[in-house]
């Protein structure tokens, strides 16, 4: 629990006023969760590094315009999500990550992921629960995976996830539930 003085919002305000130490503290607080969110979305470390720079450069530019009544984490992950979408559109101009008609349909990104990641069955042979869950995560539809990673990495609420992904509360809640149910089923299969 952070006090008001060292809350994310106070640190952004401090950095906007010229306090570089405030930025360093803010960065260290969000470095790993944000980078892992980017990695789970693009599945490439080099791309995650590039996106990480772009996101934080945007933060340095936009910090003076950050609304004092807003919350930093949803703002940060909204920037990150937009960068991920921009990057995907640049690499796949005719396709969309969000081209999902139904929660049960596998979108293009998931099919692409299948081609590059081992199946859960293969991973399960490693008897490594963590590896299995990461592999299963990669098989989730991007919307569900994104909702789960935002909750698990950044500890965001369903309301925040809905705001970041531009959906309703019910949709975000539904995506999160689908993701958890699939991963829990996998965990039960690989329970020691």
């Amino acid at each position, binding site marked *: 629990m952070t006090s008001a003085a060292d809350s994310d919002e106070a640190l952004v305000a401090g*950095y*906007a*006023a*010229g*306090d*570089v130490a405030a*930025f*360093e503290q803010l*960065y260290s607080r969000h*470095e*790993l969760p944000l*980078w*892992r969110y980017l*990695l789970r979305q693009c599945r490439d*470390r080099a791309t*995650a*590094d590039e996106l*990480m*720079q772009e996101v*934080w*450069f945007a933060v*340095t*530019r936009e910090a*003076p315009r950050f609304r004092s009544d807003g919350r930093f984490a949803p703002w940060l992950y909204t920037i990150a999500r937009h960068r991920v979408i921009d990057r995907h559109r640049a690499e796949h101009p005719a396709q969309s990550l969000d081209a999902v008609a139904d929660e049960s349909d596998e979108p293009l990104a998931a099919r692409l992921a299948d081609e590059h990641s081992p199946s859960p069955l293969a991973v399960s042979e490693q008897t490594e*629960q*963590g*590896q299995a*869950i*990461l592999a299963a*995560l990669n098989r989730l539809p991007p919307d569900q995976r994104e909702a*789960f990673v935002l*909750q*698990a*990495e950044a500890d965001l609420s*369903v309301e925040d996830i809905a705001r970041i992904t531009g959906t309703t509360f019910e949709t975000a*809640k539904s995506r*999160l539930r689908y993701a*958890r149910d699939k*991963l*829990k089923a996998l*965990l039960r299969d690989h329970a020691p």
Partner: protein
Amino acid sequence: MNPSDEDRALTDVYRKASDKDAGGPGAATRNAILAEAAAAARRRKPAANDSRYLLRGVAGVAVLGIAVLLWQQVDHRMPGEETPITVITVLDEVKTDVPLPSTTAPMDAPLRAPAAEVSPTRRTAADDSARSLARTSPTEPAPAPAVEKAESQSAAPAAVIANIEPRAPAPPVAGAPPAPPPPPGPPAPRVFGPPAPPAPPAPPPPPAPPAASAAVRNESARVQPKMSADQDAETDAVALLQLHFPQQYQSRTPHRLWLVLDATGAALRSGELTGDQSLAGQRLAIEGDLGGRLLRPWRIHTLRNAQGQSIELAIAQTP
């Protein structure tokens, strides 16, 4: 949505796996981000000791000050609008607070001040009420007794009376709608024969003037000779208030102010009494501040500022 134990276990398993698998961004990425953050902060923060900003600041303050001074010099009244200054004098209160009979008493006519002494821009609510009384006075155009007509002709000009004595007959105020025509009635009986004798003898007073009316007339007679001097003093006080206390003059709260002038009328010291400060206590401090010069007695003016707030202004002069 409250995560169940199973949900929490799932999150824990994922986080452990992610810690092992993902790691973090490269050191180069981290360094680039922190360097850019420092550079952006430097670009954003203006150097406080930069002479450009200092000059801009000074110039801005100077322009603002000039603008305020110019604004204070301009008369902001709209065409036809009267000044918002309202001076309440003892005489006004006497005129408005005590009801008087509508009969005219000629005895105080010679004591009335000439109309020119009352500036049109200093017209007060009391003056307005006097005019309205004059317009509605039954003795004005109409079937008045000849005695009163003769008195009106021999007394001071009607305009003067209208400004000073509410019950005297007077012509309508310039710009006001003309008085309605007199209602038809029987001709008034004439008592003194031919009209307009050069100097009619003073008639006896009306049959039964109330005692209060006489008392008030006596009070008016006692105060009126001082009116012109009082009004001048009040005018001066308002001018001094505007000049030396511009903020209090526009304030929306009452103030107690003091001002010390030298023999030429230039302001030596000024200030405001706050809380329970007394003028007597302040006087000692002021005299000490002025090197022991004794002040003449304070003249205390109760004024209204532009916002209608009560302003108590005490003025003293050095010999």
